[in-house]
């Protein structure tokens, strides 16, 4: 059974304040507190998903099957043509593995990512705003996508089985998965946060996410001109797919640092957009229950 923090200061008071407000652990202790918080949510999400075991197993399996279909298509293609715009079989598998794992990691830990717009419109943010944790990370982690572990398993298995990487390549793969997950998360937050301004932005957010994933799963060299420009700006699929594959083809520290900077920058930008939007939040009075 999950338990709260072993050493927590929730009931200590702030002597500087007449009201005797609660103070919390600062410094390194915050990391432990956040780790415990995240772990508690992962456990609760897992328990919630496993309440319906057959549904859980079916969704994971269906997602792996769905991913495998695409991979089979590309493998069949490479049996006939060997190369597409300079990309070979291993490049495509790497691209698919990075995007699938990135998407899987993002939606496993941030299961509400593509539901933010709905949460805003239905006034469900109230619950998160009433609790003492930053609302954005809190709402993101408070749900787990049931099928997302299927994406992670597929990506990992495909990469290890077909590409047969060495240890440095595995490390690079993990790094690229994390940057892809970060950029996907940031894009999801920005597109879904449009609901603060547009109202019902669920469809817009969904279309943006679908476009991002579609463009990420084709070899980037086939795109040219304005489309390619868009893939490195407003629809940053290039950072999800092209840059990781380039790193595997021709590693460069500068390119890696650039990718890390883009991932970190996009997260900062998305947090800024969400916070700006939060000031416009209007809540609502629908009868709601947490799932």
């Amino acid at each position: 059974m999950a338990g709260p923090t072993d050493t927590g200061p929730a009931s200590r008071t702030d002597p500087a304040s007449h009201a005797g407000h609660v103070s919390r652990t600062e410094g390194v202790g915050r990391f432990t507190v956040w780790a415990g918080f995240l772990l508690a949510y992962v456990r609760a999400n897992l328990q919630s998903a496993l309440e319906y075991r057959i549904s859980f197993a079916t969704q994971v399996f269906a997602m792996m099957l769905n991913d495998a279909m695409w991979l089979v298509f590309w493998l069949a293609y490479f049996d006939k043509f060997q190369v597409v715009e300079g990309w070979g079989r291993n490049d495509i598998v790497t691209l698919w593995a990075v995007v699938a794992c990135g998407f899987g990691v993002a939606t496993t830990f941030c299961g509400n990512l593509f539901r933010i717009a709905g949460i805003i419109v239905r006034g469900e943010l109230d619950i998160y705003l009433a609790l003492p944790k930053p609302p954005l990370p809190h709402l993101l982690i408070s749900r787990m996508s049931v099928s997302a572990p299927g994406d992670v398993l597929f990506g990992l298995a495909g990469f290890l089985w077909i590409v047969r990487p060495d240890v440095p390549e595995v490390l690079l793969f993990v790094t690229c998965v994390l940057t892809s997950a970060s950029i996907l998360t940031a894009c999801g937050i920005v597109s879904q946060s449009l609901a603060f301004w547009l109202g019902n932005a669920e469809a817009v957010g969904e279309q943006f996410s679908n476009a991002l994933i579609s463009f990420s799963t084709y070899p980037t060299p086939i795109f040219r001109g304005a489309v390619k420009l868009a893939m490195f700006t407003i629809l940053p699929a290039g950072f999800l797919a092209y840059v990781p594959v380039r790193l595997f083809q021709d590693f460069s520290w500068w390119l890696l640092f650039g990718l890390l900077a883009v991932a970190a920058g996009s997260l900062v930008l998305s947090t800024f957009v969400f916070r700006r939007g939060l000031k416009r939040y209007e809540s609502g009075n629908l009868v709601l229950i947490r799932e």
Partner: protein
Amino acid sequence: MLSLVCPSWYDSRTAARESLTGEAIGIARILPIGGHLMVVVRVDGLRKEFTRRTRTPGLRGLLRSYVSPRHETVVALDGIDFEMDDGESLALIGPNGAGKSTTIKTLTGILHPTSGSATVLGLVPWKERTRLSLNIATVFGQRSQLWFHLPAGETFDLLAHIYEIPRAEYQARKTALVERFELGPLLGTAVRKLSLGQRMRCEIAASLLHRPRVLFLDEPTIGLDVIAKQKIRELVSELNRNEGVSVLLTSHDAGDIERLCKRVIVINHGTIVLNDRVSTLKRRYLRRKVIGLRLSDADVTLPAIEHTTLLSRSRFGAKLEVDTDRVAVPAVMATLGRLPIADITIEDPPMEEIIAEIYAARSEERGRVDD
């Protein structure tokens, strides 16, 4: 009630914790500042406007709204002012859309006001929301913080992490709350399988795990049956009395205020129309009760009861209004008890009628002053 001059670090949470363990029974949770009772909620000219897109009905109106969108400003709160003292139980009542929930959401930092100022425990809610939320709790009758598919006990554990409650303190507090709210058999049941009343008991208990100093209850009895309502009222009242938790509740059920609060603020169209003691409200405006009867035999002749008016009648049912200034409800019930009754309900007049009476009384008073 005793008042005690405490050092600043001796806060109400410590007192509450000690009172729970019997260490300091009877200590009031009052922190005197400059010889005055501490004000936990202070609201000054609070105004909240929402912008709403409007259009004429029909497809043409919809298409026109795309070309030339029109917006209107809805004033949810129109510069309200009030204060709430430490340990007080205050009701904010009014009809739907009056501004009750907007007030609570602004005071808990969920909404940013358009203008005006407010502090809760000395903090500005929308600027210091995280810090404030460690010291307050909010329960929404229409929003659940419990995990739908999991037993309530799992959400309790999660909340202990969210509030960073030390393990030993959490276990002790949970045990006490489970006992007090009679949650033992419910804690292991998935929330989706609980009745509304059971769920609300779990919601309130969950919100008290971190020992909040102020409890905001937004329509806590909405949709509950009479027995469940009664239970919730008893628990909240006990909490306020024994732990000294300040309670600010919204409701459109006059019964909630009668049983829970000492003071009441009646709000309508975003403005305060009455801020007075509940006893005054009862004496002046809650002078009627509506008794609903469902009869087991058709066409029974109802006896004439003094100071009671028949509002409506059907073959198996009747609605009576009792003037409680002139006749006690139990006396009326005693007379009605002789009839073949299948079911009986006693209700307060709707909030709209109470507000209408307040307005009428005010114009009458103004008229007298003008004369």
